């Protein structure tokens, strides 16, 4: 809860995006740009899940619902309506918001493990609907055929460099917003609920209202991540709303560190790097990843960034012990 001035964060973010924009002029690696785009999408998603898991203590196993909903809604709007990209994006957020209110209202009153499973069931239900509603969603083939009118204020996002800078900028804005959320009084009430829900209630906090609000907010960020992914893959596919998506995000936040603000971003990078490196070396990706997870989980017993923070003598901002 150190009160970092918001201006400093903004300056850092602007510099980072500028650096990102400059990199392709030094080294024209397409793979790096791909990596940054995927990373932006997944990091936004993992960070949004950490608002629930790390900050509020709500372990959702089905957060991929909103990521997938972002990709599908956005893709459907772009393909089937004449809406421009920003309008379609806003409409996607609106739809996500309404869905999150309904899903959240059902889920948040459940405790711990039941909450986890019902959120997962919600996601799998959405997955089932998408698989079976072939006429709308293309079923297990997904929505192919690309995204028309990929222009943002005259800038073509079909151009990989443009999409790359755009993704990085969206991630930066997303991180700034989430940083802001957790440093407000509202963010403090999240931590109060995580630490001691009963005490928070006896201090006058309306638990239900706060939990539903953070559930909806985190769904919105997840949907933004989903839209970036949709732009990247030029479509929407059932894998993007299937359970392993949620699994990846959980992996990223636990590996990166639930107690550090940027932990999930670091975790996402670890995950994607492992993915790229290991699949290049061996076809037994699962074996390698599994062993690495065991080493982390049983060795460090906490996320990487939390581990480093503690080693440096600092105190992690959160923690879900």
């Amino acid at each position, binding site marked *: 809860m150190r009160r970092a001035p918001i201006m400093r964060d903004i300056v850092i973010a602007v510099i980072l995006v500028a650096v990102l924009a400059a990199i392709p002029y030094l080294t024209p690696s397409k793979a790096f740009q791909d990596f940054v785009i995927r990373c932006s999408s997944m990091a936004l998603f993992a960070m949004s899940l950490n608002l629930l*898991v790390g900050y509020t203590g709500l*372990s959702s*196993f089905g957060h991929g619902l909103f990521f997938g909903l972002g990709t599908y809604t956005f893709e459907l709007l772009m393909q089937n309506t004449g809406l421009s990209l920003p309008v379609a994006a806003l409409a996607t957020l609106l739809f996500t918001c309404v869905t999150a209110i309904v899903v959240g209202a*059902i889920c948040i*009153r*459940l*405790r*711990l*493990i*039941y909450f*986890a*499973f*019902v959120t*997962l*069931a*919600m996601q*799998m*239900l959405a*997955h*089932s*609907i998408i*698989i*079976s509603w*072939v006429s709308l969603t293309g*079923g297990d083939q997904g929505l192919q055929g690309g995204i028309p009118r990929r222009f943002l204020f005259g800038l073509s996002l079909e151009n990989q460099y443009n999409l790359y800078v755009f993704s990085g900028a969206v991630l930066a804005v997303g991180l700034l917003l989430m940083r802001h959320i957790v440093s407000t009084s509202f963010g403090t009430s999240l931590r109060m609920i995580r630490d001691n829900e009963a005490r928070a209630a006896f201090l006058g906090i309306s638990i239900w209202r706060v939990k539903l609000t953070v559930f909806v907010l985190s769904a919105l960020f997840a949907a933004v991540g989903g839209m970036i992914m949709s732009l990247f893959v030029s479509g929407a596919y059932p894998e993007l709303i299937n*359970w392993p998506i949620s*699994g990846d995000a*959980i*992996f990223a*936040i*636990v*590996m990166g560190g*639930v107690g550090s603000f940027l932990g999930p971003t670091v975790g996402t990078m670890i995950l994607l790097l492992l993915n790229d490196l290991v699949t290049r070396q061996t076809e*037994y*990706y*699962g*074996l390698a*990843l*599994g*062993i690495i*997870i*065991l080493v982390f*989980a*049983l060795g460090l*017993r906490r996320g990487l960034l939390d581990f480093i923070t503690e080693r440096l003598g600092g105190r992690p901002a959160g923690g*879900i*012990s």
Partner: protein
Amino acid sequence: MDLDALASCLATTSCVVTQTTSGLIVGMLLFLVAAGLTLIFGVLKIVNFAHGTFYMLGAYLAYTVYTATGSYTLGVLAGGAGMAVFGVLFERGLISRVYGANVLMQLLICYAVVLICDDLVKIIWGPDFYAMGMPPAFQVPPWFIGGGVVPPFYALLIAAALLIGGGLGLALGLTRTGKIIRAAAHNPDMVSALGINTTLLYSLVFAVGGMLAGLAGGLAAPVRSLTPGMGFSVLIESFIVTVIGGMGSIGGALIASIVLGLIRGFGTIGFPLFTDGLMYIAMIIILVAKPSGLFGKEIV
């Protein structure tokens, strides 16, 4: 969605019998897996996300022993015994290290085991799927009951699962060890204060849970195709069963398994693409109505 097909199926006994039978074998096999899952949760308060892997390994083990010896019985028993041992190793070596830790940490450990085992299966048995095929003794014409097709092997499966499930119920209800296990689910400290080594007891519970999943895998091997990753859908379904039945309740798991099996059996007629969705809807509805499952006690 094909409600007409569902209506016409429900109107003929042959279709009802066929779908009920296929629903029951799904349900009963699921029950064996879920019983272990719910038992482990009931006593240790650990959600074993690797339980589907026990099922998969049990099936592969049964397949290997069956092809080596030609005995299906031996194959199933090997699946059960092998997974009992695996369960103990898993508990002692990994899960006992995260007792009391955050559920996400437990999830991650199990996830790692799932990933590792899936790849080990690929390495040992190859990435392609196997069809074990019906044991020769059951390669006989099916029975016709009320016009419906009932392969004798299905009857065997249902009977075997009922027998194992019943045996488990009796063992938990009547033997001293069973009574101790149930008591430990309620109050492990008091059980320990009565001179019972709870560390040993926890391993035993994992052994029993692993054995049940292994037996289910072995029993299912002739009617399922064996692939690396086959454990996952079973895992999800047994979670649904466990949660609907109330976590920790074996009776609840039995009822929920049968319900889920029947939803699957008849769902394939009426909602061929949406049978999974029906299960999730059932789970959501039940949890909204009763937040701790049908037979669950309120847990914190």
